[in-house]
């Protein structure tokens, strides 16, 4: 079976859920396809990374469009990426390490991230620090909707990215109800790894994302197999 190598659209990484699009109707949480289209369109605000297989006239148009707006967009994304206002949103144990990241030793103030805002209107980065229970998921989804564009999301810790230690009835991985840009592994992640995650997001916003581990280590044969691909 020939696996066509095409980049996985952002926000649609298969995160190993058994029954596909989960509708947890018990708590009114519904991620229908129409909503996710909107999220995908939202992803273009960051500027699509250049697909490998473009040529001829299509490449020409692509370059022309980018060169024209590149200086302004680069300046704006430089400004945005260097002054994220994270939403003060501690759920559980990772929040304690999030405090330590904002604390004197690790001090993310060096990168301009320490202004933790309480209201989603003033924040442009939501760090899900902790475990997301099924009762909390609709609330986080509403908070994410109430944040103003441009907005990004970091899921800090294993519980938020993949239900971590507690693979049971009570938790929902954050990927299921909102697009996550950076997953920070660890339980709880050390302040350094959270900062590494934020700096990786910074480079993504400045439109030259670090090479993923597959590109870096030339890992062939481990591409995500999308259904029907």
């Amino acid at each position, binding site marked *: 079976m020939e696996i066509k190598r095409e980049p996985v659209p952002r926000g649609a990484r298969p995160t190993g859920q058994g029954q596909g699009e989960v509708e947890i109707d018990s708590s009114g949480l519904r991620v229908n396809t129409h909503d996710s289209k909107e999220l995908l369109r939202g992803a273009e605000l960051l500027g699509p990374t250049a697909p490998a297989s473009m040529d001829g006239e299509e490449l020409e148009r692509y370059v022309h469009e980018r060169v024209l707006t590149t200086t302004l967009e680069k300046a704006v994304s430089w400004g945005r990426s260097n002054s994220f206002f994270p939403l*003060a*949103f*501690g*759920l*559980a*144990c990772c*929040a*304690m*390490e999030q*405090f*330590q990241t*904002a*604390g*004197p*030793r690790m001090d993310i103030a060096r990168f301009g991230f320490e202004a933790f805002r*309480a209201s989603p209107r003033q924040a442009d980065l939501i760090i899900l620090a*902790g*475990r997301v*229970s099924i*009762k*909390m998921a609709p*609330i986080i989804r509403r*908070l994410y909707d109430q944040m103003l564009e441009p907005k990004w999301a970091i899921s800090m810790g294993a*519980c938020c990215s993949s239900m971590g*230690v*507690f*693979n*049971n*009835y*009570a*938790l929902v991985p954050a990927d299921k109800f909102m697009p996550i840009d950076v997953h920070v592994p660890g*339980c*709880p992640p*050390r302040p350094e790894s959270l900062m590494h995650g934020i700096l990786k997001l910074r480079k993504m916003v400045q439109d030259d994302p670090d090479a993923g581990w597959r590109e870096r280590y030339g890992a062939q044969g481990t591409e995500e197999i999308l259904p029907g691909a």
Partner: protein
Amino acid sequence: MTVADQQLSEYRRREQSITLSQVEQSGEDTHEELLTLNFGPHHPATHGVLRLLVTLQGEVVRSIKPVIGYVHTGIEKTAEDKAYWKAIPVVERMDYLSYYFNSMAYVGAVETLLEVEVPKRAQYLRVIHLELNRIASHLIWLGTSALDLGAVSIFLYCLRERELILDLFEMSSGARMHTRYFQVGGVMEDIPVGFVEKTREFTKVMPARADQYGAILNANQIVLQRLRGTCPLDAETLLSLGVTGPLLRAAGNPWDLRKAAPYSSYDDFDFKIPVGTVGDNYDRFAVRVAEIYESVKIIDQALDGLPEGPHITTDRKIALPPRHELATSMEALIHHFKLVTEGFRVPPGEIYYPIESPRGELACFVRSDGSSKPARVHMRDPSFVNLQALSHMAEGSYIADMIATLAMLDPILGGIDR
């Protein structure tokens, strides 16, 4: 009284009769209706995802109904699915600020079921780590509570001290939080060489730092006015609500399990139990800050009297044999294999093992049905019970006092929602 005074007083009498409260009375029933507001799950002052349904009349809080469960992770159900020694990391993540206390309660319960005798050195190491964790937990409480009262700098000072403690945890067990350092029967590893000296450095520095917090907060008129005399609750009501820990001690009842029912050789150390008198927010604040000094004293005494000997029980059926023995002796290999695959079996029975956590009586109920998996693990979390006292304390006070009371109650939502 001159004539002018006469008229004046007559004028003054008429004028005094229109007192502001009269004006306000008429305001009472015309448009002053109650407003129910969500002091919701995402709020900077709720110390976690606690939602309070608050009914307000202007600035005065008329009724508080806590709604919890927003970080419920089904930990007790997950623990039933794991072998005994695999359940320790799961149980540790309940009350995520005092993780050593969770594992101490669970491990204590399993050891009572197994009737394992924990060696003296392991008991002392446990006490050192428990008290370090108590200081770290009080520091986060002090930092976030001062943040609620507006003193932002204290937050950064407390985090600076907490980093020192987390370094010690990392040195002894490799991880900063949820270290899984307590094993059934003792401690996982013996402490490295430089640990004792580093802890001594910390215990020398900590009282001076605590004095710095005192210097900033104790003489600060804003903090004193916000805390003194607000939302008191007498010891009798607290007892009927099942409240234990610093909240109960602030009301004058010196109930502390480390003194009342000493466990893990707490009776070898002499330390005092700080007790308040009035039971208002300032007493709760002062009791916790004084406990930091007491914990430092306990750590010093434990370091002085640290005995030699094994750091874990020598009973091979429960503790893993040391690695180097695996190459030589067959029994060690068999024990190692048995423990690593299925884990040890615990005789059937139920036990309720209470210890003193920074927030009150933390007890672990373990029921075993003879297999190698616990049949039921329940954590009696102090914050879960203490939260019920919030409505008794803060009803009738202003919103600002309710926030200060919630800060002094020190609820940890991981322990409440389990």
